[in-house]
């Protein structure tokens, strides 16, 4: 749900990082916070437990350069991955304009990735939305671990819709592909907004081979 303010010439979007517990969602945001020009971002607010596990969400506002004469802002959120925070996840997903699903590449955690993806799909359904209307990119994190599963295994589990999602293999702790992933989801969100305003079909294929929000899109099929 974009907020368009013609008075201040600003457009604000909401992007949510969801995914498997301890997969690196907060690490993504802290890396972006550390590597983004200070003028382009606010504080990284983290509602966490004493052991640094995300309790409610992490939040960071970021501002891009002007697009179409409007200052474009993104509110970046993470949701807690732990199973028992389902209600919290559902709330934070409200009004999201784009999603990043962060999966843990560790071979022993494939089942948890699958359950998290299914949980996300349930949350979206309960929020009366779906991936038909919501851009999503997949992030396979911790690719540097020796026990990382082959990408094909993760694709088989998480990325088998009619039109596959764009995937980023990341090492969030070192920032590998973190910005590429953020840029990809931001561009998909802007493209969907552009197409909505133009009265076009926001679910059509993105340019330059960018996988779109598929008509039958789902993860963890």
């Amino acid at each position, binding site marked *: *749900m974009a*907020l368009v303010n*013609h*008075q201040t010439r600003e457009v604000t979007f909401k992007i949510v990082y969801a995914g498997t517990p301890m997969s690196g969602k907060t690490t993504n945001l802290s890396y972006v916070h550390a590597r983004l020009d200070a003028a382009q971002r606010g504080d990284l*607010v*983290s509602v*966490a437990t004493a052991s640094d596990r995300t309790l409610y969400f992490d939040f960071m506002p970021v501002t891009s350069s002007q697009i*179409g004469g409007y200052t474009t802002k993104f509110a970046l959120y993470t949701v807690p991955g732990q199973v028992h925070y389902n209600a919290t996840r559902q709330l934070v997903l*409200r009004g999201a304009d784009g999603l990043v699903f962060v999966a843990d590449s560790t071979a022993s955690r494939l089942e948890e990735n699958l359950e998290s993806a299914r949980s996300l799909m349930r949350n979206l359904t309960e*929020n009366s939305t779906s991936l038909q209307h919501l851009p999503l990119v997949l992030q396979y994190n911790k690719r540097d671990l020796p026990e990382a599963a082959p990408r094909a295994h993760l694709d088989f589990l998480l990325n088998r819709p009619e039109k596959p999602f764009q995937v980023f293999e990341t090492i969030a702790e070192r920032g590998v592909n973190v910005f590429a992933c953020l840029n990809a989801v931001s561009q998909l969100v802007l493209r969907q907004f552009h197409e909505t305003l133009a009265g076009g079909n926001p679910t059509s294929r993105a340019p330059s081979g960018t996988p779109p929000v598929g008509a039958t899109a789902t993860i963890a099929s």
Partner: protein
Amino acid sequence: MAGPAAMTAHLTLTPETIRPLLAALESLNHEAEARRVALLHESGLVLAETGEDAHQDHGESGALAAGTFFAACHLARRLGEESFSGLHYQGASREFLLTAAGPEALLLVVFDQRTRPAIVRACVGKYLPSLEAATARLRSAPPQPAAPPASWLPTGPVFRETTPPTTDLAAVFHT
């Protein structure tokens, strides 16, 4: 709160739609002798605000206020409450009142010892109908500006990474 339409449509603030919102917020702020009044979307986005320190943060307060509201709402339901209308926090120097303002908006009023919670509540009750009506009009405004830009599509990366890090990673978090 929000239904399916609210999940996908855009909210549009134009000078015409924001004027009545700001007028109601400013009147509320003045009559209640509050410090700051903000109207938030349930997703945490700040729709409009007035008073001291308004526009000083970049949405952090809106995100935290929405989170606080819904966390308290769920707790109340678990305790058996059938409805939840708001939350009052009383701190040493500042207090705030968070209340629902229509089907998808929240109202945050920050105040101090200059006034009383009962006065703030009365003023909120007085201005809620006009705020709800003004918020509903945001849905009906067309998202396209009068002079639409050629394209909302960026020509390059939306965000660029700087090196070295702009902050000390250990000092990043503000809980």
